[in-house]
């Protein structure tokens, strides 16, 4: 290994973007080496420069971007000095790229076959028929069914997972020696992600391709890569083998990042989250010395901010480096300083209850009169109740109906059948415009995307006061102003922020404003729809903790909608798992995360990448995609992908929708498997040692 020439060798690379006003350094002094057949992970939060490195390797930085220093050598050839023609010969043939959003990356007006065949036609000048034959073989390689039909298909006719397989196929058409994957599964569901990750790993192994794998997901990198490089604010801060870095972290940022991610393998008492204080520095406001300094627990004034910090050998293992000047002084095994953990509050009375709730939509007939109106069953037989002070987590993949459920609860949609009872009052038929101020104030929502849900032209304080006015709270303008300041205190925003416009706030701060608005009327029930999924990992923990703390204080019922099982395990008291509009499993967090599982929950748990090398995880990769809600399968909604189906006698699964059956106190599962069969299930996630 040591004497082999690296496929990719980046040395002291600096990349800047030039605007009219100033030069914005995006990547500084970045070095890494990818050996043949090796998979290198590039990890960091948004804005850390990881995608810029990838585009720098491709020399596709746009008109404003420029490489300002350092070198990129590909198989010993210098990329930074290549001409257009040389670059073109490299792109697609020697280095290929896989992108984050598969739909946007495929040309909507070209058939799949033509887009695939183009690669060898450009690079190897082979004929169209030969190229199409090769495309067909590659489609089989990426395990897509019916390759002839897919060659003829347009991109929009494929599902997201299939599109990403096509993008992968396109990258592999000319058997490149280096594959760059830029967040290849971020836009996909976890069960689809598991299939894609398996495929990429398998193909790369067979073809001996090296990989540069860019992700913000530490668990995914642990799954896929041999080595990794953690980036923070334009710099590499730690690099080394995956196992060394995960078991011997030698940079405060890596450690803090790791500690701020909830893991599905551990519950909150065993492994509390530790939020990283502060925010990512803006590219032109970086501090002197160590970029992480202002947020670091181990910061020493006069040393960490005195000069630029070089990469230093760390941990003893070869090729393990850290950009921390105190790498040899810090006790890396010290347990994190714990904030005082609050005792769990006992749940109170039932506050909100849904019974046999259904929401059906009627689709319009096809655009040209083809097809008839169809019924989409977005929610089927939803039964649950939640008590005061309790957190009920609602989990499921996209299209499972969890957002529809939130809309029905909020009154943005009216239920088709069934009841929703809030404090003894039936509200399923009341649209939000007919709800009184008190009802609206007591049932509030925190939205997924804090960037779009604040009015950009109104000061933050004015928006909170506006919510107070709508809820008819406060006797005078002065009173409401005081209440607004108290709300800012509650969400730990400085009081000066009242006069700021949303654009002056970071994502995490905006979401705090959203939380302040939701709690302005002392809400009894708060529906939080993926409240932190749009935020950077390092601020997610702080916002989550804040939400839970306010909930504890006010004894609010929190309905927490999420696809992140780690987060759900961390903060949920009870969990409700949804699939294709059905509740397939409901129970306390411990019950849902331990066997017996619903077969779908089992697959979902096994698909989540876990950023902990000590965790043993059983891999269950589901075949195919989630069926469309317009044409749901007959019988059990999960029967098309279920691995336990052969154990159920006859065609019970295909013909009868199972009952939501009680398997333990408070634990119900919608499955035909018998208790004895369920008892044979093994845990999916286990801590080794």
């Amino acid at each position, binding site marked *: 290994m040591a004497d082999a020439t690296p496929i990719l060798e980046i040395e002291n690379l600096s990349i800047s973007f030039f605007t009219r006003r100033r030069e914005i350094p995006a990547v500084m002094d970045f070095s890494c080496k990818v050996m043949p057949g090796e998979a290198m992970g590039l990890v960091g939060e948004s804005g850390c420069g990881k995608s810029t490195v990838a585009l720098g390797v*491709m020399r*596709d930085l746009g008109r404003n971007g420029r490489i300002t220093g350092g070198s990129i050598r590909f198989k010993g050839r210098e990329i930074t000095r290549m001409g257009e023609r040389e670059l*073109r*010969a*490299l*792109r*697609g*043939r020697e280095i*290929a*790229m896989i*992108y984050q*959003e598969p739909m*946007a*990356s*495929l*040309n*909507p*007006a*070209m058939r799949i076959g033509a887009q695939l065949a*183009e*690669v060898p036609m*450009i*690079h190897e000048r082979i004929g169209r028929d030969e190229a199409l034959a090769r495309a067909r073989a590659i489609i089989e390689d990426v395990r897509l069914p019916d390759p002839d039909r897919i060659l003829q298909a*347009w991109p*929009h*006719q494929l599902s997201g997972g299939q599109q990403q397989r096509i*993008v992968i196929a*396109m990258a592999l058409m000319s058997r490149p020696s280096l594959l760059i994957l830029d967040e290849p599964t971020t836009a996909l569901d976890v069960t689809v992600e598991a299939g894609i990750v398996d495929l990429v790993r398998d193909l790369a192994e067979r073809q001996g391709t090296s990989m540069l794998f860019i992700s913000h997901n530490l668990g995914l990198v642990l799954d896929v890569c041999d080595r990794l490089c953690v980036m923070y604010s334009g710099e590499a801060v730690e690099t080394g083998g995956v196992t060394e870095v995960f078991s011997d972290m030698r940079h405060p940022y890596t450690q803090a990042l790791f500690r701020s991610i909830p893991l599905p393998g551990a519950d909150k008492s065993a492994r509390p989250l530790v939020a990283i204080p502060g925010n990512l520095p803006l590219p032109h406001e970086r501090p002197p010395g160590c970029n992480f300094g202002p947020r670091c627990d181990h910061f020493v004034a006069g040393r960490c901010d005195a000069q630029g910090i070089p990469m230093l050998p760390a941990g003893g293992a070869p090729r393990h480096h850290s950009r921390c000047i105190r790498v040899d002084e810090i006790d890396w095994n010290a347990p994190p300083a714990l904030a005082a953990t609050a005792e769990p509050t006992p749940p109170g009375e039932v506050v909100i209850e849904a019974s046999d709730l259904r929401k059906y939509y009627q689709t319009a007939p*096809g*655009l*040209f*009169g*083809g097809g008839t109106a169809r019924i989409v069953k977005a929610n089927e037989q939803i039964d649950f109740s939640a008590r005061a002070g309790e957190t009920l987590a609602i989990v499921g993949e996209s299209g499972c109906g969890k957002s529809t459920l939130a809309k029905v609860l909020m009154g943005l949609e009216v239920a088709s059948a069934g009841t929703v009872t809030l404090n003894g009052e039936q509200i399923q038929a009341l649209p939000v415009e007919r709800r009184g101020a008190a009802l609206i104030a007591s049932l509030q929502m925190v939205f997924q995307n804090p960037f779009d849900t604040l009015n950009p032209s109104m000061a933050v304080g004015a928006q909170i006061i506006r919510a107070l006015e709508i809820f008819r709270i406060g006797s005078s303008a002065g009173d409401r102003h005081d209440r607004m300041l108290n709300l800012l205190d509650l969400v730990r925003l400085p009081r000066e922020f009242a006069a700021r416009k949303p654009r002056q706030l970071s994502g995490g701060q905006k979401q705090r404003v959203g939380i302040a608005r939701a709690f302005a009327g002392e809400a009894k029930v708060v529906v939080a729809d993926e409240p932190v999924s749009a935020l950077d990992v390092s601020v997610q923990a702080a916002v989550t903790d804040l939400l839970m703390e306010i909930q504890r204080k006010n004894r609010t019922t929190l309905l927490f909608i999420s696809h992140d099982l780690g987060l759900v395990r961390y903060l949920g008291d009870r969990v409700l798992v949804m699939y294709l509009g059905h509740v397939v499993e409901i129970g306390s967090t411990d019950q849902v995360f331990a066997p017996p599982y619903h077969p779908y929950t089992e697959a979902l748990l096994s698909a989540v990448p876990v950023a902990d090398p000590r965790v043993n995880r059983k891999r269950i990769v589901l075949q195919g995609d989630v069926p469309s809600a317009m044409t749901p399968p007959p019988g059990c909604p999960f029967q098309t992908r279920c691995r336990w189906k052969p154990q159920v006698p006859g065609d019970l699964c295909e013909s009868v929708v199972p009952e939501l059956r009680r398997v333990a106190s408070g634990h119900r599962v919608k499955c035909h498997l018998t208790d004895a069969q369920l008892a044979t299930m093994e845990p999916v996630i286990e801590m080794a040692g």
Partner: protein
Amino acid sequence: MLNFLVRRILTMLATALVLTFMVFWLTNLPPNLEKLAKSEGNARMTDAEVTSWLERNGHAQPLLKRYGEWLGVAPGWTSERGGVVSGRCIPRGASPGDSARFCGVLQGYWGQSTVFKAPVSEIIATRLSLTGILMFWVMVLMVPSALLIGVLAGMREGSKLDRVLSTASIATTATPEYVSGVILIAVFSSSMVGLKWFKGTATSAMEGISFENFFLPVLTIALYGMGYIARMTRASMSEVMTAQYIRTARLKGASFGRVVMRHALRNALIAPFTVIMLQFPWLLNGVVIVETLFNFKGFGWTLVQAAGNNDIQLLLGCSVVAVAVVLVTQAISDLGYVLLNPRIRVP
């Protein structure tokens, strides 16, 4: 797809009926008919004479009946005076027994022009074909050059080429035809500048067109429409060039030319296609000024004559043509949109 076509055609027919009825009603208002009676009969008629003339010539019937006759779905009127039976469908001197009962647009009888003293269908056929030639050459000049300008400007947004082409297209679109036409005549055919390359009139083009007598009117119309289409194409093109699939194509190793031709062009043409199709009805009416300026007696000129002289039948005929052109081009535009955009074509 078939279903779509059938529905589309049915809506078109319904629209055509409504539009022609509105034109029929407006052109057959009582003052117009009175004027018609006086110009056809005698300018010094008394009111009573006017009324009886209108009755004798079928104009006193209810509006819907008259519209039905004109359309050819109601039997033509007949009236008897002094033993001679006359009627809508009975040519002068022919016997009522030999004549058809229905005669209207559907039967190919478009009426008689009072200004030109000739059948409306004949006049429209000759005039429309003259304008058709003009429109054809305008399209031949305008569409390819506008698309070329738009694509060249949009493929590298903000470049020098883009700025030059964008400025030029804004300038041409902002200049009305009666300004650009006069300037072109002054520069290229008058003794003021002395270039005298082209003729300042297109009268001779009605017999046979040549580059010399036809280029200036074609250029005048084309310049005006060109800037507009070019701007639309540029906007569409520059948006497509920032799309992620263009990056995909670039990072496949495709050359810039290939990226533009194979990946960007088709996606960029979807929006301007509708605009180009909208230009046909505009051309039909927009030619009025240029035809007058260059004394080219085409459809626009005929329309002005008919409107100015209360020639009801000719005006109706012109409107039928206009309605048909609008509806057909819109149908083609929708169809072309579907063909260019696979996302709509194949669900």
